[in-house]
């Protein structure tokens, strides 16, 4: 696979390094700053091109036409957007991935045709959220299309779900209970599974049902 990375900041640097070490892909990094290009070339060899990744001429020189993936990881959302759109529309790159610095832009990028987005701010927020103790309902991950999420809830004693079978709980359409963790035991639940206090329930849910699910699992 030919992977083109635009933006040689911390993310771009470590991404390039990781992909090169994996050794299975052809990788090229485009970076604007000539000094960085010099340092990276010394470390990685001739897989770094100096130039503006949002300029068609630079992309052309970097062989965007035969790239399988373009990953835009500069610190500017507007640049990442244009890099991915140019890659897609002008060079017919099948897959584009954009880093998003302002979480507000996640939805916009999806609407504008970027295949995948990574919001570093949101990723960090989610990770921290999972680490904060005493949280009963945690959003674990948003799936690729953005409409689906995996969430985890811990059943409190006063939960309306405590002591009921899954079949008895009026889950809305678009919610699937994927797993129940009870202590060290992992239960792949059926309708007959009875939820208990302390159960960690992992669910795949449409995002618009996230709040309804929260109310069903926790006390209202």
């Amino acid at each position, binding site marked *: 696979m030919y992977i083109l990375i635009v933006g040689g900041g911390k993310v771009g640097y470590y991404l390039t390094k990781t992909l090169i070490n994996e050794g299975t892909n052809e990788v090229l990094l485009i970076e604007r700053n000539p000094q960085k290009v010099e340092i990276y070339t010394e470390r990685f060899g001739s897989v770094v091109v100096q130039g503006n990744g*949002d*300029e068609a001429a630079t992309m052309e020189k970097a062989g965007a036409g035969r790239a399988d993936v373009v990953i835009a990881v500069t610190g500017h959302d507007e640049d990442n*957007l*244009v890099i991915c759109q140019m890659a897609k529309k002008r060079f017919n790159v099948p897959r584009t991935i954009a880093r998003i610095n*302002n979480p507000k832009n996640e939805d*916009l990028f999806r609407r*504008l045709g970027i295949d995948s987005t990574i919001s570093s701010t949101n990723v960090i927020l989610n990770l921290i959220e999972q680490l904060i103790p005493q949280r009963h309902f945690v959003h674990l991950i948003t799936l690729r299309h953005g409409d689906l999420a995996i969430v985890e809830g811990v059943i409190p004693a006063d939960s309306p779900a405590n002591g009921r079978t899954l079949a008895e709980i009026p889950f809305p359409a678009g919610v699937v209970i994927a797993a129940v963790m009870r202590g060290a035991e992992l239960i792949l639940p059926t309708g007959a599974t009875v939820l208990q206090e302390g159960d960690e329930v992992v669910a795949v849910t449409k995002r618009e049902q996230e709040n309804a699910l929260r109310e069903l699992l926790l006390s209202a």
Partner: protein
Amino acid sequence: MGCGRVGSQLAARLDREGHKVGIVDTDARSFRRLPDDFRGLTIVGTGIDDDVLRSAGIEGADAFVAVTEGDNRNIMAAQVAREIFGVAECVVRIYDPAREEVYRQLGLDTICPTKLVSSLAHDRLVAAMLARRERR
């Protein structure tokens, strides 16, 4: 969006013509380019932020013009205006001709000063040379 020389001149003109105008720029000092009798709204902030655009009155706006120095900012803002706020007429300045071509094909109403100025200059030179040849 963008209160540079072009943005300020355009905003002042539209204002004089009786349109309701809002103008956004990241630098408050840019608004000094506007005439003293400018009646429009001036908002400090980046036009790629939907909240900033909202406070400049983009909801219900008939037209949006992006003329900052940054091609990508202009492109992104124009797409926000069109896709999020449904603004019918979005004019966007793009200096890079290759980029301009792509976004024109994508349906943005683009202006490429690079192409305009170079072709104007070219035409004038050709005209001047022809005139000189005729005089001989």
